[in-house]
């Protein structure tokens, strides 16, 4: 690492080039090219089945791809194995279903990976975990188990768990889709705070409000393709393609 990592010469945080993926006969990702710059917040929108979740999961290779390359901070993702695991540690991920470790307390959920993957001492990891839980507003629940928390609280813990690894980029795969409506706001708040603090984020969501408010760019996908890449303002007020107009018509009129 030299001192010129930030600047024009630095590689994009995420780069996808020519990525293709099939599920059987279904072509879920078609020749995807996407670059996400350092500190940028990219929101991926699109109808269900458009491949946006698959795109998100392909970035840390939870979803293997058929062809093309994915690079994180200039390093291409290797084959499944130790090197891939190491690279994944730098990529935080938040899932639709939270996926907190059910057998561990909230605190241990946040402490586990830093101690076991990064080799951070237990005391230090706990101290940082408490600070993170405080930041997402769950500090009082540290000794509870995931099943004892509401969905919104669990998702905030999941964000803290990912942040505990001090990731270079955070992926959000429909983080509010499994939540009761009244809990969406609390999770969105945490995400907006992260965006403001300069975290590089790729967010797959149906929350148009978040896209308007926090996104630097909107990526609109349909049928496995990236159809439009533009600013939130231009996407919502002047969608360039028929498919985007159709999508916006459906979600905004009801």
């Amino acid at each position, binding site marked *: 690492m030299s001192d010129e990592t930030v600047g024009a010469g630095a590689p994009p945080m995420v780069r996808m080039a020519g990525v293709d993926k099939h599920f059987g006969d279904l072509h879920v990702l078609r020749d995807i090219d996407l670059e996400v710059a350092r500190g940028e917040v990219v929101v991926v929108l699109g109808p269900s089945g458009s491949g946006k979740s698959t795109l998100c999961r392909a970035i840390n290779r939870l979803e293997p791809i058929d062809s093309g390359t994915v690079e994180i901070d200039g390093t291409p993702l290797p084959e499944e194995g130790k090197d891939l*695991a190491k690279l994944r540690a730098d990529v935080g991920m938040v899932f639709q279903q939270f*996926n907190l*470790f059910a*057998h*561990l307390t909230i605190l241990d959920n946040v402490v586990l990976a830093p101690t076991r*993957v990064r080799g951070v001492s237990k005391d230090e990891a706990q101290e940082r975990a408490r600070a993170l839980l405080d930041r997402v507003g769950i500090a009082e629940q540290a000794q509870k*188990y995931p099943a004892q928390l509401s969905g919104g609280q669990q998702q905030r813990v999941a964000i803290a768990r*990912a942040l505990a690894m001090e990731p270079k980029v955070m992926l959000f795969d429909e983080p509010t889709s499994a939540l009761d409506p009244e809990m969406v706001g609390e999770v969105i708040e945490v995400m907006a705070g992260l965006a403001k603090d300069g975290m590089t984020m790729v967010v797959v969501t149906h929350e148009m409000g978040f896209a308007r408010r926090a996104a630097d760019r909107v990526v609109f996908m349909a049928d496995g393709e990236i159809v439009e890449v533009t600013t939130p303002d231009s996407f919502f007020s002047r969608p360039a393609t028929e498919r985007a107009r159709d999508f916006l018509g459906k979600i905004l009129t009801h």
Partner: protein
Amino acid sequence: MDVLFGNLGEFLTRFGGTIALFVCSAIASLILGVVLAAMRVSPVPAMRATGTVYVTLLRNTPLTLVLFFFALGFTKLFFYLPFFLLAVIGLSLYTAAFVCETVRGGISTVSEGQAEAARALGFGFTQTLTLVVLPQAVRSVMPPLTSVQIALLKNTTVAAGFSVFEAGGFYRAVNERGGSTLVALLWVALGFVVLVIPLTVLQRRLEKRWSVAR
């Protein structure tokens, strides 16, 4: 009562033998069974195949045959080991196949998202399995796993067949001294009931303790 109190020393030492056989075999079978279960879900085909062959062979073989092999065959083929140790090996290898299948059943109850979250945090296969998936899998199969271990406890009597000093042989000892075989067997049965109770209590305790945590 005479049958019991007249042979109390014998009765107690024999049950001591049963407990020793059980504890050693239980620990070994749990460890081996969990390792086998891990092999059966491993991404490496050779590991999976080894696990499958092991389970197929051991689970489909009568325990008596397994123990006879170790009692008679092992020493001839390889080297001398005391009968007690041979019995522990035989019982452990046999029971491990059942532990393996039970734990594997538990692994399939753990949602895929748990393993995905672990991988996304940078855990490799082994860590994902040992830190996240197996602890939850074992918790979810406590009742059947206890049943497997209770079966092991009772299977220790088969070891009496090749002169390991344990409870199943009590009736013969009584018989030699002119006591009633039937009464002796009833006492042995009662002894086993008493031995199984702590296992059941342990199972309940663990289930209760883990009820929130899964």
